[in-house]
C-alpha cells in the first residue's frame, strides 16, 4: 500500500509538471474536437493526431496520446447524444436513451450525466490500473512463449466472439488479419514475405496505415454511400448538472457500469466494446419499469457511459503489463510508443517508472479536465456538429493524408491507406466487420514469434501448449469462449445485433 502511494506520488509529480499538464490538456481538447465529428471514432482520431506528438519527449507524448484517446471517447458520446450518430461503436448504446433525453429538452442533463459517469468510472479504473499494474507485470515475467501464444489465442477467440454478425465471417477476418501481419521481412531469416517485390512493404504494413484505411477512409465512403439522417438537436441544451434526484438515480448504474466495464476492458480481444452493452442490459433487467428504457432513461446513459470509460481505461492493463494490445486503439498506442522508443510490456513499469506512473496519474487528470472542459464547451461542440458533411469529409481526408504521410514521411503510405480504404469499403459491403481483422493483425507478429519460439524450445512438439499449466488453462478458456458463442440462443442474439 505504501509502495502504491509512493508510486502515485511519483506519477503525480511527473504528470503535474507544466509541460505534461499542458500536453494532457491539449490532448483532451483536440481529441474531443476531432472525436465529436460524426463518423470519426477514436482509432481514426488517434491515427490522425499521432504526428502532433512527434516533437515531444516520450512521457509527454504518451500522456498527450492518452488525453487524445479519452477526449475522442468523450467526443463520441457527445455526438451520440446531440446528433443521432454514434462517433464510435461503443457510443451506440448511449445513443438509445441519450438522444431521447436530448429530444425531450434534457440534452444538458444527458451530457452532464455522461461526463460525471465517465469521471467516476475513470477515477475508479485509474485506481484499478495502479493496483494491478505491478503484480500483473511481475506475473507476466513468468510467462513463457507457449503461455504467451495461448493468451493470444484467447484474445483472438474473444475478438471473434465479440464481433457482430456471422461467426464464420469473423473467423475469416481474424485469419485475414493474421495473414496481413506476415507481410514484410521475416525477423528470423530476413526473407521478404508477401511483398510482391515492393520495397515499401519490406518493413511490413504500418498499423496506423491499415487502421486509417479501414476505419478512417472507409468510414467516409460509408457515410457518403448512405447519408444518414443527421438530427442535430435544435433549441435548448438545458441545464447541464443533473438534479439531486437525477444523480441519485444514476449513481447505482454508474458504479455497476464501472465494475462491468473495468472487468471486460482487461480481457484481450476487445472486451471493452462489450461493456456498454452489458451495462445497458443489466440496468434494464434491474429497473422497476424496463419500458422507460429507450425513451430517455437516465440509467441508460449513466451505466453504459461509465462502462465505456472504465473499459477504455483498463484496456491499458494488458498493454502495459503483458505487452499485448487488447484492441485497435491500444495497438495504435504500441505504434506511438515504438516511435518514441518504448517497447510496451512488463519491463516498462520497472525500466521507466516515471512514464508508467506519470501516465496513470495523467489518466485521472485527463478525466478531471474532460469534466471541467467539456461542460462549458458544449455550445462549441453543437456548432461544430452543424458543419455540413460536404465540408467536413474533405477536411477529415486532408488531415488523414497529412497524418499518414508524417508518420514516416512516406508518400507510399498514403497510397497504401487509400488501398486499405477501398478494402475496408468492400469488406463493409460484403458484410464483414473490420475489428477482428485489426486484432488479428495486431497480435499477428507476436503470435508467430511466440509460436516459433515455443516450438523451437520444445523441438517441434505441439504438446508443449498442453503440458504447461498456464498455457493449457488459457487454451481451455479460449475453447469455452468459442463454445459459448455457438450456444444457439446467444448466436441468435449476435445476429440480431448485426441487423
Amino acid at each position: 500500500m505504501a509502495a502504491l502511494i509512493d508510486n502515485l506520488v511519483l506519477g503525480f509529480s511527473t504528470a503535474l509538471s507544466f509541460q505534461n499538464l499542458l500536453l494532457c490538456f491539449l490532448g483532451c481538447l483536440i481529441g474531443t474536437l476531432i472525436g465529436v465529428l460524426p463518423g470519426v471514432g477514436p482509432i481514426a482520431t488517434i491515427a490522425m493526431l499521432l504526428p502532433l506528438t512527434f516533437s515531444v519527449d516520450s512521457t509527454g507524448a504518451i500522456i498527450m496520446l492518452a488525453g487524445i484517446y479519452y477526449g475522442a471517447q468523450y467526443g463520441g458520446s457527445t455526438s451520440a447524444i446531440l446528433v443521432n450518430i454514434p462517433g464510435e461503436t461503443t457510443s451506440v448504446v448511449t445513443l438509445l436513451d441519450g438522444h431521447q433525453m436530448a429530444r425531450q429538452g434534457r440534452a444538458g442533463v444527458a451530457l452532464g450525466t455522461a461526463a460525471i459517469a465517465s469521471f467516476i468510472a475513470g477515477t475508479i479504473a485509474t485506481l484499478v490500473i495502479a493496483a494491478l499494474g505491478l503484480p500483473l507485470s511481475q506475473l507476466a515475467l513468468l510467462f513463457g512463449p507457449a503461455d504467451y501464444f495461448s493468451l493470444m489465442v484467447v484474445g483472438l477467440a474473444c475478438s471473434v466472439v465479440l464481433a457482430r454478425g456471422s461467426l464464420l465471417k469473423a473467423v475469416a477476418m481474424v485469419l485475414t488479419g493474421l495473414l496481413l501481419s506476415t507481410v514484410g521481412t521475416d525477423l528470423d531469416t530476413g526473407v521478404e514475405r508477401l511483398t510482391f517485390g515492393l520495397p515499401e512493404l519490406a518493413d511490413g504494413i504500418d498499423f496506423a496505415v491499415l487502421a486509417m484505411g479501414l476505419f478512417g477512409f472507409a468510414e467516409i465512403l460509408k457515410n457518403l454511400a448512405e447519408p444518414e439522417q443527421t438530427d442535430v438537436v435544435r433549441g435548448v441544451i438545458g441545464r447541464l448538472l443533473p438534479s439531486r434526484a437525477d444523480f441519485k438515480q444514476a449513481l447505482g448504474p454508474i458504479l455497476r457500469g464501472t465494475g462491468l466495464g473495468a472487468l471486460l476492458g482487461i480481457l484481450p480481444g476487445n472486451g471493452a466494446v462489450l461493456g456498454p452493452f452489458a451495462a445497458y442490459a443489466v440496468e434494464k433487467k434491474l429497473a422497476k419499469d424496463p419500458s422507460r428504457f429507450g425513451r430517455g432513461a437516465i440509467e441508460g446513459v449513466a451505466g453504459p457511459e461509465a462502462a465505456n470509460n472504465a473499459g477504455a481505461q483498463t484496456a491499458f492493463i494488458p498493454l502495459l503489463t503483458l505487452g499485448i494490445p487488447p484492441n485497435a486503439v491500444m495497438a495504435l498506442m504500441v505504434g506511438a510508443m515504438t516511435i518514441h522508443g518504448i517497447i510496451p510490456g512488463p519491463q516498462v513499469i520497472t525500466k521507466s517508472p516515471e512514464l508508467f506512473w506519470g501516465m496513470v496519474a495523467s489518466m485521472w487528470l485527463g478525466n478531471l479536465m474532460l469534466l471541467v472542459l467539456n461542460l462549458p464547451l458544449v455550445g462549441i461542440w453543437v456548432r461544430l456538429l452543424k458543419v455540413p458533411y460536404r465540408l467536413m469529409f474533405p477536411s477529415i481526408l486532408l488531415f488523414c493524408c497529412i497524418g499518414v504521410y508524417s508518420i514516416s514521411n512516406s508518400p507510399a503510405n498514403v497510397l497504401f491507406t487509400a488501398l486499405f480504404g477501398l478494402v475496408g469499403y468492400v469488406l463493409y459491403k460484403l458484410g464483414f466487420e473490420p475489428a477482428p481483422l485489426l486484432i488479428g493483425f495486431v497480435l499477428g507478429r507476436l503470435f508467430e514469434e511466440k509460436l516459433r519460439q515455443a516450438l523451437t524450445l520444445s523441438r517441434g512438439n505441439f504438446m508443449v501448449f498442453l503440458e504447461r499449466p498456464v498455457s493449457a488453462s488459457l487454451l481451455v478458456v479460449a475453447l469455452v469462449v468459442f463454445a459459448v458463442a455457438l450456444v444457439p440462443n446467444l448466436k441468435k442474439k449476435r445476429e440480431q445485433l448485426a441487423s
Partner: protein
Amino acid sequence: MRGVAEEATAAMVLQQSESNSTPDHGRALAKEAEASARPGINQDLAAGLFLMALAALAGWQASHLTAGSLRQIGPGLLPGALAVLTGLSGLALVLRSRGQQNGVPLGRWGVRGPVFVLGAAVFFGLTIRSLGLVVAGPGVVLIAVLASPERRWREALIFALSMTLFCVVLFKLLLQLPIPLLPILIGF
C-alpha cells in the same frame, strides 16, 4: 507447400469463372436480384469469393517461401497455412450461400465516393513530395468535393485554400513537421 499452391489455383479458377459477377457488375446484378428476388449473387457468395481471391494471391506469394519443419519453422509456413485457412473459410461461405434461399443481396455499390475520395488521397500521395502541400492540400479538398452529391465551387475553392493555410500554419509552422511546402518554387 504444394497444398497451398493447389488451393491457390483452385481458388483462382473459381474466381475466374465467377469474376464476371463480382464488384464491377455487382451493382447491376444486385438491382436485378432485388427486382426479381431470384437467388443470384448474394452477400455471402461474393464475400466467399473475395476471400478465396485474397487467399490465392497470398498463396501465390507464399509459394516461393520455404516452410521449414515444426522444429525450425521457416518463413513460409504461417503465411501458407493462413492462406489455406482463409481460402477454406471463403469456400465455406460460398457453400453456405448456395444453401440460402434468400440471402442478403449485395446492395448498391456507390462508385462516385470511392473514386473521388480515394482518388484525392492518391493525388496527395503522388504530389506531396514533388509539388508539396501548397498544391496537394487544395487538390485533396477539390477532388474530394466531387464525391459529394452537392457541389458548390466557390465555397469549395475558398474552403480548400483556407484549410491548406490552416494546415501549413499548424503542421509546418507550429509543429515543424518535415512536410514539403512548395519544393519546385521555394526549395522546401
